[in-house]
């Protein structure tokens, strides 16, 4: 399946990917300013830039073949789509027990405690139906979306 891969050597640590991830998961998908200023609480970025300067790269869910989070999930909220391979968390079923966070080998799931506690993770912008927002907006082509 197509995944997002980081090219660490070209990541400039600007975190524009995080900004666009927030926008892509807000109610204002075409308006950065509104997504940041109007939506409250502001969605969490599902991609995180890991840094130890000069090294930096953006990390998000790897959508593992044998996704441990789906096995750990006590409610069945965390599912891997058998067709697309995308791992998503169905937030209405998620109870915020954080077992998936314990199970994730990459640290790619984070806690969202803004309202109802839910696990927050990359969904590859599945509902947008195009190249993930982080890849599309990376100013230095340090993120690629491809089959490997």
């Amino acid at each position, binding site marked *: 399946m197509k995944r997002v891969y980081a090219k660490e050597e070209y990541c*400039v640590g600007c975190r*524009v990917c*995080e*900004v666009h991830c927030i926008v892509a998961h807000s109610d204002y998908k075409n308006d*950065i*300013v509104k997504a940041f200023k109007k939506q409250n609480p502001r969605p969490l970025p599902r991609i995180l830039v890991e840094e130890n300067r000069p090294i930096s790269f953006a990390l998000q869910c790897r959508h593992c073949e044998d996704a441990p989070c789906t096995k750990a999930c006590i409610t069945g909220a965390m599912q891997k789509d058998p067709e697309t391979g995308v791992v998503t968390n169905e937030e209405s079923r998620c109870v915020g027990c954080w077992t998936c966070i314990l199970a994730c080998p990459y640290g790619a799931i984070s806690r969202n405690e803004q309202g109802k506690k839910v696990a927050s993770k990359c969904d590859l912008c599945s509902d947008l139906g195009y190249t993930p927002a982080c890849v599309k907006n990376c100013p*230095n082509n*340090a993120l690629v979306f491809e089959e490997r």
Partner: protein
Amino acid sequence: MSLDLLTPEFLIERDRNRCIDCQVCVRQCANEAHSFDAEEEKVVSKDEKCVACQRCVVMCPTHALSIRRFPLEFRENALWTGRTIKDIYKQAATGGILSTGMGNDKPYPIYWDHMLLNASQVTNPSIDPLREPMELKTFIGRKPEKLEFKEGKLITKLPPRMELDVPILFSAMSFGSISLNAHKSLARASQQEGTFWNTGEGGLHKDLYQYGGNTIVQVASGRFGVDPEYLNAGAAIEIKIGQGAKPGIGGHLPGEKVNWEVSETRMIPEGTDAISPAPHHDIYSIEDLHQLIFSLKEATNYKKPVGVKIAAVHNVAAIASGIARAGADFITIDGFRGGTGSAPLRTRDSVGIPIELALAAVDTRLRDEGIRGLVSIISASSIRNSSDVVKAIALGADAVYIGTAALISLGCHMCQKCNTGKCNWGIATQDPNLTKRLNPEIGAERAANLIRAWKHEIKEMLGGMGINALESLRGNRLMLRGVWLSDRDLNILGIKAAGE
């Protein structure tokens, strides 16, 4: 001195309605002009640190930033401009030589803008380059005196030459003055577009030997990075005597830019200053230059053209004649507006002569002496666009070097702070946090696009003149007319006035 008399050069304007305090600007500014005030939970800026490189402006996801000239009005007059006053404040504070980057930015006449090209009307047909073949092929090197054929086959042994698909090369910018990613970008673009890039005097990084066929290796007064392998790696060798931005003086790469990769490539210890002497200590005459040219030819088995680069100075024509007679295969003339990674401000702004006059003078002199065919002339400095290229060729250049334009294609915004090592665009820096900002895949594509775009435009202009091969334009000064030029200028340029 607790009071600094300098006032900010630029004003950072942040549209608070658009700023989302995402801190992208904070992370991108190597000059630390932006910072995040955690207590106020907002991004704030310090105008005095801004150099107007516009990295933050371009990167800001909401376009909330703009940079303006600081609106402070100096009590200036025509003689004492704000800039002049500031320079004195700087020197009074430091006691040092003023250093700067990029080329001469003073308002000297730009002769390119005083020359106009011809076009065909009625009496000769213009050519549409989209319908008919158009030849830009250019050879750099010595031309044989005559060609001999036997049974329909060429039997004259041709001297070594560089073959270019387009008469534009990337000028010498050393690894050290610019980043490895910048070198990679230019090397790949050269290969892609069938032209050449020049190492500058900093040696050739081991990763770039694969682009040797499109590389001109430079030998300068510091001899940095020169060994037999290096000389043989390139397609041609250029001896650098002088540079347009700083004629008569050498170079100095500060030790902090000499990281292990630069050190390995330049063949000097890590962290040491790389000082290129002002003269070559083995060249005090044309005869000495002849020896070096032939030492290099000997070292490369007479398989590569060897050229000499000089700055355009007062007696440039006579010097060029000497260089041609010393055995050089090409002469690079770098005008006073040529760029630099670092030069003393006064030298950059006040030494040398305009390339247009120098180029015309050299071409005329070599023709008058009947030795124009011994050498190719590469014109360097202040080429901003394809019409400058066409004008340079009509004045007598075989090809042109572009440096500043090439860097602008990679993202340079001309802030003139190359000498500080804090290039926010990852070009003129060795800071690993900054160099990774230039992705050579993107850089190569942009530089190659620029060459390709200019190639199309050159073909259009040639076609308009009814010329279908660049060779027919070379030194064809009848295709140029001068405007707003004195008789003396026209005479030196060897062109007629518009209307004549």
